[in-house]
């Protein structure tokens, strides 16, 4: 590559890094403005992804969040290798890239003064996929809520099962739901917040089992992939298919809440827990 085209590329990258392009309306937004607006597009209300810690800061009262089960991380128990290499290497690369060691952060804290346990998924780590470590943290947090008798909130952001862990990943659906079943038995509230995207095995387990199912505007929520369904039925699907709005219309979620209102909404509904 000639020096000038390299310089131009570098210049372009510098400029690009100052701007965020909205995935929905394609507008360019100053990075600072984007962050100040909680990664939500000021033009079209598109809710971009945020990290687990960013979400924790938005929801929990300052200084109240106490992280739990942080040491849990994935292992390559099947010795899984595909075209692009080993799962083992992928785990290390994802740890390095994201600075976290699993696709979910768990802990307890206060939301406008109300104690709650939370599991917050992070899409940056292997697409938020449900591995054994992910399932373990979600179950441990449910068990903590069960023992402490305080509400449990899970924020999902996941492409579904983690293929590199085979059926061990599938079994995390049963493992996490076993935790939810115990909360149900003890009448401890479980709130599921389905953020963009929540699909596959995560939707078909704990994410759909909330006493309240909440979502953010425009979030994609579904079981089977859009392309798979289009191939099955041989026709194009409607644009709003598998969106939070579509699920609200079909009766599967209680409410669509914007990111800036989420904390207030959660503390409001939790204030009705009268036990």
């Amino acid at each position, binding site marked *: 590559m000639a020096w000038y085209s390299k310089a131009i590329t570098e210049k372009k990258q510098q400029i690009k890094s100052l701007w965020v392009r909205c995935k929905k309306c394609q507008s360019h937004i100053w990075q600072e403005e984007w962050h100040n607006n909680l990664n939500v597009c000021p033009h079209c209300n598109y809710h971009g992804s945020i990290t687990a810690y960013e979400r924790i800061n938005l929801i929990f009262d300052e200084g109240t969040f106490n992280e739990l089960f942080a*040491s849990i991380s994935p*292992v390559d128990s*099947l010795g899984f290798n*595909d075209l692009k290499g080993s799962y083992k290497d992928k785990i290390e690369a994802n740890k390095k890239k994201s600075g976290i060691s699993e696709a979910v952060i768990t802990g307890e804290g206060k939301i406008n003064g109300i104690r709650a346990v939370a599991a917050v998924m992070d899409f940056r780590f292997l697409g938020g996929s449900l591995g054994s470590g992910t399932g373990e943290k979600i179950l441990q947090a449910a068990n903590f809520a069960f023992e402490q008798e305080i509400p449990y909130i899970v924020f999902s952001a996941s492409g579904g099962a*983690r293929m590199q862990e085979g059926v061990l990943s599938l079994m995390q659906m049963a*493992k996490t739901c076993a935790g939810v079943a115990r909360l149900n038995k003890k009448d401890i509230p479980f709130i599921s917040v389905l953020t963009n995207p929540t699909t596959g095995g995560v939707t078909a387990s704990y*994410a759909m089992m909330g006493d309240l199912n909440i979502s953010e505007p425009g979030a994609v929520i579904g079981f*089977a992939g859009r392309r798979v369904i289009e191939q099955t039925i041989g026709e194009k699907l409607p644009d709003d298919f598998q969106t939070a709005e579509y699920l609200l219309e079909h009766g599967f979620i209680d409410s669509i809440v914007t990111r800036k209102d989420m904390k207030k909404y959660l503390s409001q509904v939790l204030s009705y827990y009268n036990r």
Partner: protein
Amino acid sequence: MAVASSLKVLTSDKSKHKLNGSTKGKQLSAWEIVKISRHPQRPVFQDYLHSVFTDFVELHGDRYYGDDKAIVGGFATIGGIKVMIIGHNKGKNTEQHVERNFGMAKPEGYRKALRLMKLAQRFNLPVVTIIDTPGAFPGLEAEERGQAESIAKNITEMAALEVPVISLVIGEGGSGGALGIGVGDKIIMLSNAIYSVISPEGCASILWRDAKFAPDAAQALNLTAERLLHHEVIDEIIKEPGEGAHTDYEKIADAVKKSLVKNLKTLSAIPVDILLDKRFQKYSAMGKFAGF
């Protein structure tokens, strides 16, 4: 993690596995087992229903929407023991495959299954589920009516169902569609059945960028009964006769009956609170991870 010592392996003689003569004496590859699990002559749910169970009383409908023929269920008797049986039914020929949607259930199928499980609890009957599905139906109406919710609900409710539950995988254990009737106290697989988080073809087209790498994906996914027993996902393997269950319907029926009766007797002797605690511990221990 629990040790595998308490698990009983009914299969040991790998040298006897054969497939159409071509693989005589060799251990079958994961892909060869996938092909046997989908063999067109392989016995399906309705075969076992007739050869293993008696006095079947079919119960229809989910009470909300319809009656999904991909899942069949009702009262039945096995070796003198009364049970609730629920299973995916693929059907035996093209006409039946279409009628039963190749065993790919929709939300109304999973909701019918749950209704029958709750009924079993009311009648104090153990539940036997028979798994044989490529997966839950990936269609527009299935999503519209809550495919994810119906599977999630079943998985959650089965974890707390107050009667013994045995799940037997006879052919394909296709992901969430299988697990939707597959949470139980004992998980049993036929030796050439498979259980997978995704089809080998689907996995290959994502991770290998081409479905033709399905044999590699099948190997990597650890989807055979033998591998799953090793990973402590299942509890028992029923050895198939000859070159597979399709070669001897009578023998496989006998083996299935023997295993189910034995497990039903064992589980029925356990008080329900201990049973539920053990079931919770069983699923709590699923999977391997580091750092706790």
